[in-house]
């Protein structure tokens, strides 16, 4: 008899086989971190009940079993390898295995030589992710599959990382999308994640086998895979036990189970884990701490019908709804904190009705709403004001501490922090996708360790050895916890460790403070997560400073909104009356907008009052029909220029046509290449402006999941050129960029410079055509034309030197003309913005950030908010050298410093930096630009952009920026 044990991150699985490889016994159970104990129990049971002997061959597998096996000298087999062994035995004709587990995702290719892919350290899309999404949708995981099967449509949900997906789903929920559609979209996101993250360019074909929990239990997930991959995969019997089976099949030699069990019982060895100071050393510390924090309170008093005047504040957050009702003395007469249950309008409808019923005669004189669901709620219930979250939180924080320097709010899904200067919001820090890991994440861990969040955090308070889990995003945290579990660390220590991690994550990852003093003296902390005393304590510890946590820390947004409404001194609120609420209805319809080629999928909410609220739009066109007054938008101007080149017509493609992918540096250099190739009478086909479907068409060959999105898009562009039938694609390797004469060197970043090489190595079809990617330095070809000509002659044998020189000349004048006209257009925008008294925003990124799929309509969002938009490349190049503290040696990045300098010198301009997720060079530029701006007393705003189309976070930043700028203007009296 042979035993195979698979000890995973959450479960322990066991298979016992006889000498004919027939399964004798199987079991599958959760181990709740009690790995050694469970294993000992299981082996004793096997010994007594199944084997009848203490001797058997045994092999351990699974990520959490590695350390154990090592210490007890039990043979260990890597789990992917075990899967492979089992598959080879049980499904011999299998070509590819797709296995999704609790926290892992794997693809095993069997055809053409074995290849194994596991999810990288940054990748979601696993069982735990689906669990998390189910709890977000507030549906039991068992119903998820059924629900998904009823879906009518699919939304785009970012697939790279669970955290991203979450921030995509939340707005959908808040906008009233159907849960069935979201469930199905989540599964599609898992499929996309598996394909991009793991297949990385290798096509998945042939006989596919699905393994692991999610694929076993969810037929619709299998269906999504089948459809996307265009095949029919199978889910074999015992699909959950393949790893254990493989381990059993590989086991050799016999062991004495009683010795193993003895060893397991002794397992209490901790190694490789570091511990932190306990949060509280003794009862006294805890008592002092709780007494101090109990002071920051708002009086709650019962409703007095003699004083019916009141103000309503609503915070429609990402997962929760908070409602506060104040009397005219800012005392709370009613508050309500609840999960939004995926249907914020219903929750608020009920709450409002309750208010009217509970407090007869109440006179609501003003109301305000804030949070993710702001617009929906504002329209649904005729709320007087919709205010941006930062303003709501600031108003509340100032009530507790008028001189507050810094507010940090850790909510369920997001971290919002901002610095206050001269009474207004100055710098804002939001957790961008990758640095997430806040409230709901603690909750998820609590439930995965089978307890609730209150109990979990209480346990942490008095833990003696909090485990050090590092400070990174949820996915990383998962594996840190896995490591801790592997070492047998108990729940209290994990809980305290997680609380400390949340704090460190906020401080060092989101705010990126270098010294804890930099936050200021008066700090107000709030948000649901600070309800958790362990988190609060860890925060004060890390800061070495006492902070103010209002007792209503979870209600601060709503409280601030109510205060805001009361400060406005309205006569009467427009909020729906009780009778109006009785006839309230909310109908959701989905349509596709036909006003432009974006074809946004719109969600139209119609309310009983006839009021409509449309969401999902990327521009304001569907809201007000075709636009009247022209927007001042340089991004739009740039896209127009590209269209005017007239190089998109695929019908004219012939054998001589040269395809050029429209992405990265080609956004600018096409103005060189067009006249250059015109000289030789060669026609160019430019790949179209990016769209979602263009991206998806090339997604499968993307080789690295942490690359920046603009680079990933190139695969789609190449694909579209191939599909158009070109036989030559021109995309040169360029270490060096154009010299703008404002940096020490003129490098491209490594990705822009060498992406053609990656494309060449990862897209097979390129081998069948001429993929011209000769290294070129445009500055040096004037002096050394023969070098480049020699390279190009390999593909264009009849190019002659005189004509080549002429072409280079033409290229340069075309390029220079473009740059000049761009700067001219920029000047016009600046002038007209001043004439129209519009706020001028410099969107500082790269030329290729104008790509509509990259920019996600941020430009039109800005113009929609009444701003004029200009880009960094449209600013006049400064004649002076810009003094930077870092090496200034990349052309595109030098333009950012130039933009920062100009923004610093002009009161009417504000700079918003666009940073692609994964951009390594911008890790350097962002700090420098922030410093350059702040030294001139300007606000720095950064927008991280990626695949995601969620503009929620972007809107918060921009609206906060605009409200601060407005405040500044009123202060200065301009």
């Amino acid at each position: 008899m042979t035993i195979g044990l698979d000890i995973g991150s959450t479960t322990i699985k066991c298979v016992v086989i006889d000498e004919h490889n027939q399964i004798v016994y199987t079991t599958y159970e959760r181990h709740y971190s009690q790995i050694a104990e469970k294993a000992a129990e299981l082996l004793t049971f096997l010994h007594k009940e199944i084997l009848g002997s203490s001797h058997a061959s045994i092999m351990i597998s699974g990520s959490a079993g590695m350390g154990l096996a090592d210490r007890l000298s039990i043979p260990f087999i890597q789990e992917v390898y075990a899967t492979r062994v089992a598959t080879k035995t049980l499904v011999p004709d299998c070509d590819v295995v797709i296995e999704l587990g609790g926290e892992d995702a794997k693809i095993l290719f069997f055809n053409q030589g074995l290849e194994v892919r596991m999810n990288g350290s940054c990748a979601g899309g696993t069982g735990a992710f689906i669990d998390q999404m189910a709890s977000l949708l507030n549906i039991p995981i068992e119903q998820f599959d059924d629900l998904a099967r009823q879906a009518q449509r699919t939304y785009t949900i970012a697939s790279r990382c669970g955290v991203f997906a979450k921030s995509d789903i939340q707005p959908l929920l808040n906008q009233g999308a159907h849960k069935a559609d979201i469930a199905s979209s989540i599964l599609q996101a898992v499929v996309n994640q598996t394909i991009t993250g793991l297949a990385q360019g290798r096509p998945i074909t042939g006989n596919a086998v699905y393994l692991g929990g999610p694929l076993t239990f969810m037929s619709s997930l299998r269906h999504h895979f089948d459809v996307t991959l265009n095949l029919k995969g199978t889910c074999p019997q015992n699909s959950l036990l393949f790893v254990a089976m493989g381990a059993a099949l590989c086991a050799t030699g016999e062991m004495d189970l009683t010795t193993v069990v003895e060893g397991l019982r002794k397992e209490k060895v901790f190694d490789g884990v570091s511990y932190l100071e306990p949060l509280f050393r003794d009862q006294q510390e805890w008592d002092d701490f709780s007494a101090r924090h109990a002071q920051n309170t708002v009086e709650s008093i019962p409703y007095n019908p003699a004083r019916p005047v009141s103000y309503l504040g609503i915070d429609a957050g990402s997962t929760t709804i908070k409602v506060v009702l104040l009397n005219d003395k800012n005392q709370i007469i009613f508050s309500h904190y609840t999960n939004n249950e995926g249907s914020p309008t219903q929750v608020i409808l009920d709450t409002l009705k309750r208010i009217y019923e509970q407090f007869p005669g109440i006179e609501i004189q003003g109301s305000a709403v804030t949070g993710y669901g702001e617009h929906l709620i504002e329209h649904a219930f005729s709320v007087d004001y919709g205010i941006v979250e930062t303003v709501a939180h600031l108003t509340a924080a100032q009530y507790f501490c008028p001189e507050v320097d810094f507010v940090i709010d850790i909510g369920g899904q997001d971290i919002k922090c901002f610095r206050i200067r001269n009474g207004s919001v100055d710098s804002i820090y939001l957790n961008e996708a990758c640095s997430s890991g806040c409230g709901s994440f603690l909750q998820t861990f609590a439930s995965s360790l089978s307890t609730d969040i209150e109990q979990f955090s209480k346990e942490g308070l008095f833990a003696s050895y909090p485990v050090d889990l590092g400070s990174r995003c949820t996915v990383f945290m998962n594996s840190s916890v896995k490591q801790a579990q592997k070492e047998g660390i108990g729940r209290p220590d994990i809980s305290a460790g997680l609380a400390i991690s949340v704090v460190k994550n906020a401080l060092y990852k989101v705010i990126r403070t270098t010294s804890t003093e930099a936050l200021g003296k008066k700090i107000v902390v709030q948000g649901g997560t600070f309800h958790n005393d362990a988190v609060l304590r860890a925060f004060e510890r890390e800061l070495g400073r006492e902070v103010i946590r209002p007792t209503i820390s979870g209600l601060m947004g709503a409280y601030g909104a109510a205060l805001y409404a009361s400060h406005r001194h309205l006569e009467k609120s427009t909020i729906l009356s009780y009778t109006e609420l009785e006839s309230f209805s909310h109908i959701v319809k989905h349509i596709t907008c036909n006003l432009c080629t974006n074809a946004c999928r719109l969600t139209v909410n119609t309310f009983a009052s006839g009021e409509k609220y449309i969401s999902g739009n990327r521009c304001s066109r569907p809201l007000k029909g075709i636009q009247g007054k022209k927007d001042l938008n340089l991004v739009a101007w740039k896209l127009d220029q590209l269209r005017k080149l007239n190089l998109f017509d695929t019908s004219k493609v012939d054998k001589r046509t040269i395809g050029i992918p429209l992405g990265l540096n080609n956004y600018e250099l096409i103005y060189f290449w067009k006249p250059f190739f015109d000289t030789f009478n060669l026609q160019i086909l430019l790949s179209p402006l990016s769209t979602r479907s263009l991206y998806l068409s090339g997604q499968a060959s993307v080789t690295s999941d942490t690359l920046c999105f603009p680079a990933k898009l190139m695969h789609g562009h190449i694909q579209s050129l191939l599909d158009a039938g070109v036989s030559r694609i021109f995309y040169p390797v360029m270490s060096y960029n154009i010299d703008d004469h404002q940096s020490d060197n003129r490098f491209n970043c490594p990705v822009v410079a060498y992406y053609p090489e990656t494309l060449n190595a990862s897209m097979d079809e390129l081998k069948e055509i001429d993929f011209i990617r000769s290294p070129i330095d445009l500055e040096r070809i004037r002096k050394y034309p023969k070098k480049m000509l020699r390279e190009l002659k390999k593909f264009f044998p009849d190019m002659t030197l005189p004509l080549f020189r002429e072409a280079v000349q033409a290229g340069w004048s075309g390029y220079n003309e473009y740059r000049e006209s761009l700067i001219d257009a920029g000047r016009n925008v600046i002038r007209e913005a001043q004439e129209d008294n519009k706020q001028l925003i410099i969107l500082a990124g790269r030329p290729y950030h104008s790509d509509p799929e990259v920019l996600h309509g941020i430009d039109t969002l800005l113009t929609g908010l009444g701003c004029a938009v200009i880009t960094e490349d449209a600013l006049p190049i400064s004649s002076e050298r810009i003094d930077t503290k870092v090496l200034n040696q990349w052309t595109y990045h030098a333009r950012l410093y130039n933009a920062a300098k100009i923004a610093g010198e002009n009161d009417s301009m504000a700079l918003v930096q666009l940073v692609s997720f994964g951009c390594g060079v911008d890790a350097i530029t962002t700090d420098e630009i922030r410093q350059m701006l702040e030294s001139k007393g300007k606000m720095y705003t950064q927008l991280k952009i990626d695949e995601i189309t969620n503009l929620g976070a972007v809107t918060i930043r921009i609206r906060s920026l605009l409200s601060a700028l407005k405040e500044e203007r009123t202060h200065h009296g301009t």
Partner: protein
Amino acid sequence: MEREPVFTREMRSTHTILAPNMAPIQFALLRDVLETEGYSVELLTNEGPQVVEKGLKHVHNDTCYPALLVIGQMIDALDSGKYDLDRTALAITQTGGGCRASNYIHLLKKALINAGYSGIPVVSLNLKGMDKNSGFSITYSMLRKGVAALVYGDTLMLLKHQCQVYEIHPGETVRKVSKWMSHMKKQFMKGRGFRIKTMRRNIRAMVKDFEAIEKDYERPVVKVGIVGEIYMKYSSLGNNHLEDFLLSQSCEIMIPGIMGFLLYGIENQIIDVNLYGGSIARKLIMTTIRNFLTRLEGIVIEEVSKIERFTPPIPFKESVKSAEQTISLSCKMGEGWLLTGEMKDLSHAGFNNIICAQPFGCLPNHIAGKGMMKALKDEDPNINIVPIDYDPGATRVNQENRIKLMLAIANEQRIERVLRQKKRKQ
């Protein structure tokens, strides 16, 4: 703002320079060379979670992991109280290419100001004449000696890796490495060991000495090559003691030497002129230097090849050739084409199980490492590469688990090979 402290000539005699310990053997020998030039240098070996923590605190978290580690380690050292801060300077390398690593020194200076050490002078170790007004100058004699130290260091590392896993008396190889390191230091102090003739003599003796280690070549050993971002592939602080782990898994390791990286830097300057045009004089100088270095390389190859059981280092020229078939030689940022070339070379030399170690999100590695995996696999189906990402959040258990998978496949291939050989014999 305060003026930046400069490392003055006088400080040579008063200050201890703290430097990162990227590759223990090579860097120790380089330190010895600097001591012969009158500098007092200490290589940092402090480790522990506080190193990463201090890095996270003082460096932008999206910056490459090596920068975070090196800077965290330096600040941790300054914090330790071990050093007289008025008599301490720091040294950091600066490559000066299009990779963001060229910014390490600026990040370090920023971090020092943040951490309250703005008075500590920083020395830039570069070959491009950046940071000229420093009292630390790289002289011809220093270069000449430094190159010799690198050759010795690379050789000792190579021999160590080829003996350790087979040694019958545990610890013998390591003892021999230390013996040779102190032996070389003694030679250096006497001004010896730098001439080509003595170099050949020393290397020959080294090879012989390591050959004499009693070994068991019947052990089931898997041959594993390590490539990647330069800091990650050598530094145990960076790669979570990867060499020790592999040794515990019975692996014979091969890590291409630092000399290859030096040659790569020089070759790139020649390539640059060839591709785009430029100064012919510069090209000639670079060619001369390259030829000199490949001559030194040749000595090691020749001496190691004399022992049948030893695998000599791959000649640099081979790496250029193998890289060229797969990736454009214009890819010169970071480890660039050399990374691709080294993976192919290792595979040719029988080390087809390869760990490609890189900091999470390393830009050049996106191209030359992960970006080339498919092409490498297409060319050589037996190549068994596992890319491992290192960063402050990545856990050792995950990294080792992935490596174990690579090893499982390697073992399978090894067993198949053994069976095939047996069959052939029958």
